[in-house]
Structures are given as C-alpha cells and as structure tokens.
C-alpha cells in the first residue's frame, strides 16, 4: 500500500539540499522501523518519491513524499516514531494512506504550490504594495526562463493562480509540477526588474506553505496533497 508523508522543513535544515533530504529520509525509515517496501533486483532500494524538490535556502510547512509500505502502520504511532528519530529542522506532520494507482503519486499530480515571500534584506519603495498590485494587473508578464540547455521567453502571468498581500509579505499560489512550474524567485525578480530595482540590493525569503493537486470536480480548484489521503489505524 502507498502512504503519503507530509513534513515541515525549517531552521538550519534549509541548507540541506534535496538529495541529502532523500538520504535523511532513507535513514529515518530504518531508525523509526517504518516497514517500507524495497524494489527487487540486485541492489534493492526503498520505494520513495518526493512531490517536488525544495531549493537550498527555502523553508516549508508543506513538503511531501510518497512511500510504499510492506505492511500497514498506525498513522499516529508512525508519525510519533519518525519524529522521535528526526532532528530539529524536520518535523513529520502526517502519514496518510493514498491511492495505489501509479499515476496518483505526488510527483505526478502536483499542480500548484503556495509560497510566502517576505523581505530578507534591502529596502522596497514605501508604496511597494501598490506597485506589486500594478505588476500583477498586467495581462502578461514576460520573463526569460533558463532551462538546462537554453533560455526562452515565457509569459508567467497565467502561472500565478492567486496572490495576496499578507502582513508584510506576499502570498503566491503558483503552478507547480511536471507540466508547468514557476519558482517564486522568478516572480520577484520580474517584479524588481520592472521597478528598476537592482536585484542584488534586495533579497527575499521564500517559504513554501502547501502543495496541491487539481481538484477532482474539474472546477479549476485545488486540493492539498495531504487531503487526498486518510489516516491509517492498526
């Protein structure tokens, strides 16, 4: 059976990259005695996949990995065991059973992610909130997107599903996943360059809040990856 684990990444752990977070979870599974299933073959490895890698320097309240279990576990008990074996900086929030269908892994169905952007250093103009609203009211926002091989100009406006000024920060709901993916720093870079603020004078802190799949009703709405599973009891 498949389960989805939701976790929080905070503090000094923001300096641990994705590959090392994967290694951390592999070892955590063993320490916490989670009966994870292995692939066959000569060098078996754990069946584990992450919804979306989090870049170095970012923190998150909504990270996900899906794993295959060899036998059922109790959600509450498993979460407790994992937290006992974890470190400051990674907190397990939930473990929920999900559909066994292959096309339903977090990585495949991921469609959007929420980010909270706040000012880390430098200074923005006093009326930055108005400026950001103007920026968002544009019909299109063309930026140069770097890919592995080349760079191309794309319109990122359709990839920003929602935005909101909250306290001193900005909430962004951005397209995420394998079809379309927009990183929050690209949005902020585009905003700064539109205001003629040099990118190296202002820096932002990015915090991921949640990850979503498209909701089943085809309404254009989203459902959090966590809400797609249910707690297990043994």
């Amino acid at each position, binding site marked *: 059976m498949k389960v989805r684990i939701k976790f929080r990444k905070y*503090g*000094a752990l923001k300096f641990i*990259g994705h590959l090392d977070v994967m290694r951390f979870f592999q070892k*955590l599974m*063993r320490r916490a005695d989670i009966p994870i299933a292995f692939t066959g073959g000569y060098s078996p490895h754990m069946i584990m996949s992450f919804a979306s890698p989090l870049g170095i320097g970012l923190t998150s309240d909504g990270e996900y990995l899906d794993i295959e279990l060899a036998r059922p576990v109790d959600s509450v008990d498993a979460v407790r065991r994992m937290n006992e*074996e974890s470190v400051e900086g990674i907190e397990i929030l939930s473990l929920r059973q999900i559909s066994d269908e292959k096309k339903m892994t977090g990585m495949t169905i991921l469609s959007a992610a929420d980010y909270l952007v706040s000012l880390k250093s430098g200074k923005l103009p006093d009326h930055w909130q108005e400026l950001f609203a103007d920026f968002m009211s544009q019909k299109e926002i063309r930026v140069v997107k770097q890919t592995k091989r080349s760079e191309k100009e794309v319109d990122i406006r359709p990839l920003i599903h929602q935005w909101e000024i909250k306290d001193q920060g900005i909430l962004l709901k951005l397209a995420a996943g394998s079809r379309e993916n927009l990183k929050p720093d690209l949005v902020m870079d585009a905003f700064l360059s539109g205001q003629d603020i040099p990118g190296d004078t202002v820096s932002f802190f990015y915090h991921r809040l949640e990850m979503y799949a498209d909701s089943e009703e085809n309404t254009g709405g989203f459902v959090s990856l966590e809400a797609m599973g249910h707690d297990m009891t043994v």
Partner: protein
Amino acid sequence: MRKLALNDDILLKIEKPARYIGGEVNSVIKDKDKVDIRFAMCFPDVYEIGMSHLGIQILYDMFNQRDDVWCERVYSPWLDLDKVLRKENIPLFALESQDPVRDFDFLGVTIQFEMCYTNILQVLELSHIPLHASERTEDDPIVIGGGPCTYNPEPLAEFFDIFYIGEGETVYEELFESYKEWKASGGNRREFLERAAQIEGLYVPLFYDAAYNEDGTLKSFTPNNPYAPASVKKQVVMNVTDCPYPMKPVVPFIKATQDRVVLEIQRGCIRGCRFCQAGMIYRPTRERDVEKLKEYARAMLKNTGHEEISLSSLSSSDYSALKELVTFLISEFKDKGINISLPSLRIDAFSLDVMSQVQDIRKSSLTFAPEAGSQRMRNVINKGLTEEDILTGAGQAFEGGWNKVKLYFMLGLPTETEEDMREIARLSDRVARRYYEIPKEERNGKCQITASSSFFVPKPFTPFQWASMFPAEEYTRRASIVKEEFQAQLNRKSLKYNWHDAQTTVLEGVMARGDRRVSAVIEEAYRLGCLFDSWTESFKNDLWMQAFENTGVDIDFYNLRQRDAEELFPWDFIDIGVSRKFLYKEWERAMQGEVTPNCRMQCSGCGAAVFKGGVCYEGKN
C-alpha cells in the same frame, strides 16, 4: 531553535553549507552552563573526511557520556569559508553550540597524516588561539594532539600544549579530573601542564629541551621540568571488548567518505611488515569478542539508519572469528537491504565465497597489496605474500566471474633495484595472463588490471626508520621505469598503471622523521599560503620549497642521510613497548632479505608482551 555562527548570506554563498551547521542525528547538545569542561574535537580536514574517522566518534561518545563534559566537533573550513572568516573576522566555531572554539577548555586535534599540518595552524589561527604554545595564556584552550602522527610529535611540538601518545580510552578521564581540580584551585597554565605531564602517556613539549650535534643530529633530549618524565609511555587498551564504543555515531546530512556503520573488530596486526607504522605502534594485536560485535552491529544499524556496514582492522583475515561474524552479518542483514563491505580481506576461497554473496561480481574489483613486484623485495619488507598466493587467489577470482583486479605497490623501498621495479609490471602481466588461461567462452570479456604505486616514506618506530629516501626526481625516474616496463608487456592493453605524486612524498619524509626545527618550515609554508596540502587542487609545492629556503631547513638532511645504528632519534623518548633493539634487528634482517614469522606463528620478542595481553598471551591463560 539553535542559532548558527554564520548568517544566511554566507551559508548560501559557500559550497556545502551543511559542513558548518551541525544538528545531525545523534550529535550531542548539552547546556553549557551545566558542564565543567567544554572540549572541541578537531579533525583538521574538511567535514566529509573528518566525519569518516572512527577515532573521533569513539572519543566524542566517550566524553559525552560524562555529565561534566560537553564534547563538540570542529573541522577545517574549506578554502571558500576560510576567506570569509578572515575577511569578516569571524572566529572559528564548534558545530554543536556554534560557539567560538576559543571559549572552550580544550581543543583536541587528531593528527592522522603529515599533509594536514598546515591545516592545524589554520584551525588555531581562525580560532584566534596563538600558534605557539609558549604564547598562550589562561584564556586560551589547552591544545592537545593525538593520533598516529604523534608518535613523532616533534615537528608540531611548538604548536601543542600536550600530546596524548597512544589510544584515547585510557587516561582522558584522569586528565579531566585533574583539569577540574586545577580549575578549582585557580592555578596558572603552567601548573596545569605540570599536572598533565605527570599523567602516563601525556607529553608536554614545553617541558623538554633538544640539543643538537655539530652534524645536525640530535644530541640530547631532556626534561627541563621536574614533573616531566624522561620517557613517555604509549597508552593501550588491553581489554578492547569492554572499552567504550559508540552505539550512536553521528550521522551526517551530506555524504561523508565513510557513510556507513564501522565495526572495529581488532586493533594491531600480527604481520610485522617492516614499512608499516600501524603494525608496530598498535602492538600487541587485540581482538574484540565476536558476540559483542554482533550486538554492536544490530544497535548501530538501528541507531543510525545506515544502509551499509563495514569491518575495520589492519588485516581482517587475521581476526579469529571472522567466518562467524561475516556469516552472521550476511544472514541477519542482507535481506534488509543492508550492504556489507569487507575491506582488507586476504583473497582466498572463503573471502571469494562471502564476497560473491555481498557484492555484484561484474561491477566490483578485487584488491591485492603485494606492495612489491619481486619476491626478493617482498622478503625485504617482510610482506608474507608470495606470487603463488596472488596468482592462485586471482585465478580463483577469475574463475568465480571477477575480471577486475587492483594491485597496490610501493616504489623507492630500501635496497630496491631496477629489476625489482620492472617486476611490478611483470607481476601485473602474469595476473592478466592467468585470466587469459581461462577458455575464451568462459571469460567475461577482457580483464582490467589496475596497478598503483605510492612512494615509500620511512616512518618512526618501524624497522625502516633508519632508511634513506630519494630526491623527487629519482622517484619520478623510478615510476617512469615501471611505466616503460608496463608498455613492454604482452597484455599491456589490459593493464593500467598509476603512480602517486613525488613532491608530497618528499614533504611527508621531512615531517615524518623531522625534529623541532621543522616546525619553522610548517609555519612559514602556512604563512606563504599553504593549506589543504593533501588536496591536489590546493597543494603548492613551490611555496613549500620557498618555505624551506626562507627558514634554512635542509630537506636532504632529513631525507637523504643514512642514519647510524646509534643515532638518537627525535621520537626515542616515546616508549611504544616494541624495543628499538627489535626494530634494528628487523632492519638488519631486511638487509639480508630474511623473513620474520608473524606473531601467531612464532613470537619474535619485539617487546610488546610488556602490555601483558593480546596475541602475546593467546592460549597462555
């Protein structure tokens, strides 16, 4: 939440910030106000190397078991952070508390290889601790060194307050108690060092004077303080089964060189290879109880979550319960996705059988360390491995499906002739020929024989401590003779030959057998910008040569001179149990090409029996 010593901007701009943040699984956090002693334990190389070292894990665990001590870790900041710390005047800090090292009571440095010496100075300077022990005050930590290089601590004598000679499990407790008493008494630094000097195995360099003869050799080495003993006794743990072992080693976030559980199955080696320092200084050979090791394996795998376990010893095949232990590991863990790695095994039917169970034969390679190409040369170095052993072992392996073999050799050994050098290539070729004796249809394509040679560096407390070395050009010449001979071999297309750099060999030679005067070169090289000398990308030989020139220290004096039977060596004040008389007898036997049997075949009376245990007393209870 833990605060970090470095801010986000710094951490985001340097390579691998995880090296500096601490907070790993099983790292130990205590309340600094509730401990009496804060100990910063340093491995003077980059985090991934230092975190792979078993000795530190043992001491870290042992110290932290005490409620009154908090031991933390420090590693060398890589070149990128080094620049930042200097520019922004940020003091070097320990990983756990992120507090400056200078606030600690002790800075312990493990000294594993000669090419880390400039890194020790970097750690001191970045910690804002005076480089010279003589310039430190009560505000500075006590700087204590340990590890294999301290068997000749003299090139580093100026920079350390204390050297701990031998295995760390024995007298640290005593040192800590003494430190607490001294701290309560409000004494000065010198008074503490006098207390330390009275503890067996501890050497306080400030309390000794060296005098030299006109020819530059050591004339005398005498204590100048009534509390300092004339001879310092190496520390050994005689009951290795019941001595502390870390059940919860720290698990790094980033991949360390050694990313696995390490089971130390024994200490010491019965073999007596004449070039090998470890084989002499860790005498007598002592085995851990196999039942205890099984418990350790279970507990450590559970507590770390590692997916691999490895055995550690100088020669695993000599461990008496090896078969039982390996069978246990395979039956217990193999189905749980745990890899079992078995280094330093002699290649024979048993080891090939277990290796075929734990590794993918097609991908893995077998390693032999003949150390020398000719039988004559192997007799000189007392490497009890015959050509027949190698060819039989390789033959069995080839028939079992392996087709990759690694061969390790040394060049520049005492009495080495051109014939001996050429035999390296010829022996490699004979291994390849053995492969092609297998009928073509049963073979697994071509074979790959990779031969590597390093240049021999004579080490203190070995029979070869009297041997002379060669200039760098001579090492290179010898390697090119071997290279040329490889090209003349029948199976040259299946053979590959690599050799190590000759420049670091020369430096290692000076550091290994140097005296106190060598410290000036180390300091000058560091001032000129030498750092991370064991890393090819940062090794700067021209600066080292400049340092020798600036200080007037003569490389040839240390490396090229033939040492007399009677010469007083800088390390002679250390008593390792093994006698100088035995070492010299072995040197003479080497010159005659005579082989000495290993400890289990026949005792050669080396002197290590003075410790009253281990292999010396096997079957004598």
